């Protein structure tokens, strides 16, 4: 992993080199900075693509074994290359815009959705000194950049010129806005205990994982996270049996791949956030920090996959009930209880 990410000490040296290169080539120093930024972005994108590939393969295998099947087996050893084959298929497919679509909005939507998830990766602390950008408001940043994703989904649903997509987009907007509330409030308990919004500090302050102090908060976060990523049992925006594929019914090829990528990146980000805030992040004995971080994230991702392949789907109004009538009050209660305990002890 150290090769994918420029660790904190390495990157300034690299940046200096690029600046020097830019001056030597007769370009302004800014060009070096831009090149450095591009390099980081490229590295992040590679990390993101790799994560998603591993995740998709894992999901298909786990789903297979849960369903009395064996999952992909043909391409490569036990189907490990299946994801690469699928990626190639998606990339070489014709990208096609339906006649009734709002062309530009339709084209932009997948990238908006993807970027929202992708940007959050920047601030995730993989290890003590393995964070692409160390922000002292990291938690706020991650939660904030993830939010515009819903705009992309609305754009996709609206611009496709398809009624299923429209209903899917609308459902999605309602759902994601509703679940943002309990999600954020459930995080506040952790912030109150640790007294910081800096993800590094939050991890370092965990002598014991915060899940011990915040079991309810963790539960609410987990449920809301599944809803935020539009996964079963909350996948009503793309409810296959009702809306064919909801907001991305009309998408194909690389644009569909971006939606797909976004879903998995969001899943990864929210699982990583859960691992960081509730499970102690990179902390753990014997192994390097990033191994612990990935193992904890993987455990939560497994829960996501498990949910998806065992639960039926909620109905849209039942989903809203769950958010506003159960999770949000519980999250406030959790917040209140945490505050009281902190004050009284």
């Amino acid at each position: 992993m150290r090769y994918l990410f420029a660790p904190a000490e390495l990157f300034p040296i690299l940046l200096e080199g690029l600046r020097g290169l830019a001056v030597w080539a007769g370009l302004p120093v800014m060009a070096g900075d831009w090149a450095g930024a591009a390099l980081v972005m490229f590295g992040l994108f590679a990390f993101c693509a790799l994560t998603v590939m591993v995740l998709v393969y894992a999901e298909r295998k786990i789903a297979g074994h849960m369903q009395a099947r064996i999952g992909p087996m043909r391409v490569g050893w036990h189907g490990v290359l299946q994801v690469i084959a699928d990626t190639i298929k998606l990339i070489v497919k014709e990208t096609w815009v339906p006649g009734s679509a709002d062309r530009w909005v339709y084209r932009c939507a997948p990238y908006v959705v993807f970027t929202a998830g992708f940007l959050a990766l920047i601030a995730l602390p993989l290890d003590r000194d393995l964070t692409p950008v160390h922000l002292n408001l990291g938690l706020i940043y991650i939660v904030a950049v993830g939010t515009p994703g819903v705009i992309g989904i609305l754009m996709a649903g609206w611009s496709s010129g398809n009624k299923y997509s429209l209903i899917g987009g609308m459902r999605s907007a309602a759902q994601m806005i509703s679940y943002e509330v309990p999600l954020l409030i459930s995080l506040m308990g952790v912030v109150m205990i640790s007294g910081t919004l800096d993800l590094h500090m939050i991890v370092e302050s965990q002598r014991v994982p915060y899940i011990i102090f915040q079991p309810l908060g963790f539960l609410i976060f987990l449920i809301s996270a599944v809803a935020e990523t539009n996964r079963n049992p909350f996948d009503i925006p793309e409810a296959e049996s009702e809306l064919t594929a909801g907001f991305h019914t009309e998408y194909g090829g690389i644009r569909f791949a971006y939606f797909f990528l976004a879903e998995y990146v969001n899943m990864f980000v929210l699982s990583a956030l859960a691992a960081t805030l509730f499970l102690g992040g990179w902390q753990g004995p014997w192994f390097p920090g990033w191994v612990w971080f990935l193992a904890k994230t993987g455990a939560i991702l497994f829960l996501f996959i498990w949910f998806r392949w065992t639960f039926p789907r909620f109905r849209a109004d039942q989903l809203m009930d769950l958010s506003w009538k159960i999770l949000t009050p519980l999250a406030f209660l959790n917040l209140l209880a945490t505050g009281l305990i902190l004050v009284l002890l």
Partner: protein
Amino acid sequence: MRNLETDYPEALKTEEITLNMGPQHPSTHGALRLILRLDGERVVSARPDFGYVHRGLEKMAESLSYVQYIHITDRIDYLSSIMNEWSFCLAAEALAGIEVPRKAEYLRVLTAELCRISSHLVWLGAMGMDLGAFTPLTYTFREREMVLELFDLLCGQRMTFNYFRLGGVVRDLPPEFTKQTQAFIKYFERLPDIYDQLLSDNPIFLIRMRDIGHLSPATAHSHAVTGPNLRGSGVAQDLRRCEPYSVYPDFDFQVVTCQEGDALARYRVRVEEMRQSARIVAQVLEGLPEGEVRSKVPRVLKIPPGEAYVRVESSRGIQGFYLVSDGSVKPARCRIRVPSFANLSVLPQLVKGVKVADVVAILGSLDIIIPEIDR
């Protein structure tokens, strides 16, 4: 406080939209088209449109001899083909006055009940799928595969069996069949518990299925709804019991009913029916008589002029054949009464006012086979 909707009607102008659900749609179970009028997500009205897989099966009967037509009947309702063969054979036998040996009757009951199990298994998986749970499907198909293997052993076919003949069945049980079937029944006994874990004990499944698509006995009767859908409304109508044909009086089984009449009741009826069918299969294997499996019927069979209407209890309800003979080797007219047609006709009433997601659940709970409707 002012109400936006009532005080400013022009500010909040809403429109109904028409949504064509199907004919190509993952959960219309084939080529069915539902024309939905939607107010937001609420269904204002629904109109089923079908006929996309019309094959002219009734007309086809007029150009085929009685024996040749048996394998065509398999294609009416491909999940309960045996029942279609049965009702056709019963009608033709009634016209020609053919006696069926007792052992053949037992084999007919045996295959029909196995067929009912496999049909309900497919339905159960599809129902889970309609609600967004993919996994039950793979489990039910695993079990269905076992039933299909039994049929494969018996008549070399997995879905279109062509097993019945006028005056009996085409061949006796192969030697290993009894043992395999008994093993399957033993295995099958504990399965409903697994399904309970996956579906019926699941709170999400329950809130999705309960109190939707409420079918009252009066509505059911006025639309000629039959089968598990009717029994889910508390009416104990089962032709196997109330109008017994073949050797059904020999067997001990319950007519499963549920009082609620909602989608969950129909679900419970079908799951319980699978257990009852398994019971019947076990009893058939125990009491299988010796003897011929087919009575002597002339190769070229001329059936005396007349007409007959015979009905049997298929997996979905009452399946009937009306045959008119003019004394030749072919039927002069054939008319098929299919349960799915009547069961679908009640859908517009059931879905009025529900959400789009419930339309799928209600349609799934009615267990409709499109090729059967279109014939």
